[in-house]
């Protein structure tokens, strides 16, 4: 946390309190009691967790993944723990229970 004195002066700030989307907000990791963990073996790539997540904390990528049973997927999912608040919607809604909530402490 910066001290108030180190923040920009009035003439350094944009007028009218207008902000631009290029500043990364603070991490929400501290909000969590539990964190979701995705089991890419169980995951069927239905995309629901990605679309339900209120915090855009599920990252979808083109990373290929081949399961132990030999099934290959062209997409992968992982959690952005910087933004995840640990609400548990992803684990609750996962149709194959591929996401588990693990206590933070």
């Amino acid at each position, binding site marked *: 946390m910066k001290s*108030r004195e180190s*923040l*920009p*002066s*009035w*003439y350094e*700030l944009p*007028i*009218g*309190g*207008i*902000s*631009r*989307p290029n500043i990364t907000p603070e991490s929400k990791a501290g909000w969590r009691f539990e964190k979701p963990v995705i089991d890419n073996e169980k995951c069927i790539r239905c995309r629901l967790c990605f679309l339900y997540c209120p915090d855009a904390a599920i990252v979808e990528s083109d990373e290929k993944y081949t399961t132990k049973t030999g099934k290959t997927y062209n997409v992968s999912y992982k959690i952005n723990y910087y933004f995840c608040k640990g609400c548990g919607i992803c684990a609750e809604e996962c149709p194959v229970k591929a996401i588990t909530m693990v206590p933070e402490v």
Partner: protein
Amino acid sequence: MTQVYKSKSLATLSSNKAVAKAVGQLDVDVIAAYPITPQTTIVEELAQMVANGEVKAQYIHVESEHSALSAVVGASIAGARTFTATSSQGLELMHEILHITSGLRLPVVMAVPTRALSAPISIWNDHSDIMNARDTGWIIYFVSSAQEAYDTVIQAYRLAEDREVLLPTIVSYDGFLMSHTYEPVVIESSEDVIEFSPKTWKGYIEEGAVAIGTLASPDYYYEFKYQQVEAMKNALRKAEIIDRDFYKKFGRKNGLVETYRTEDSEIDLLVTGSIWSSLKLAIDKARSNGLRIGGLRLRLYRPLPIDEIEKILAGKEVLVVIDKAISYGLRVAGPLANEIYTNLQSPVKIKSVVAGIGQRTITNEDLYKVILHVYKNKDSPGFTKHTLFYGVRGVELDS
């Protein structure tokens, strides 16, 4: 039907129509307005201009003044040159958005023919409405003729859109006394008008994704408000420059403070709006009777050109400030008188007079009576302590 003014011409216009004329020549993009007396004839005129294709603007028939200002705020953010107008209760309904418009630094221009406030309801003139807008962060002009209304709207866009200013601007004048009375007005060519006040405002959206109207924590809010303080300082400087440039281009100089026979005056009267012409007659009469009286008329009310007033008042004895509004519960009850009291660094004695409430007539004879009263009583102890409520039944002038 299209009326493009190719060259300077003379027209007989009310202040409302003069305002509409100027707005029509300034290539305004979005107009949003809601009817209220005595403003309505401005937006009727503009609606006709839009209907004739004379003005290429979107005209939004909003369902309230609150929405009128909200809509032009949205349009201004999107890069439009905007206009709205209101009076009295309408200005009160807009009040919340007045602060937001200036806080977001949007160059919205609005005409306000002033009118008394309810209750009881009064459609007639006084300055209660505009005085309630004085701390909203808007630039406020207070004009005193239809010509000046026309000239000032042209100047207002240039001032509001100046990069060092970017503040919304009100052009106000007396409802009915000016909004509905006709005077000769010189109309400049549309080409000259737009050349004087070219569109420079591009809005905020053009610059890429931006969040407008954010939440400012105690770490930031104060700085944004201070930016408005500085913008007002710039506005004062720029208003003078713009007025000078206007004179160079069009040959009419309005000034920020107009004076009348103040060179050797002992007592001066400070007024705003249409009362100015009556005051000049009263001053002439006083002068012919050997009284050294002068007059000041404030054309720019926010930012207040106090340095200029101070200079004019150097060495004067008494300043009478005539208000057409009441700040209830104060010994000195005139809002403008209060501001002059607190801002003026001068030993001049200030006498507050309230008159013309709800358009109670003030003639040059009334003003002459005020002058005599002040002249007679100026040295009696406690004379400047209280506001004189001139013209109200039950209050004697010499009590």
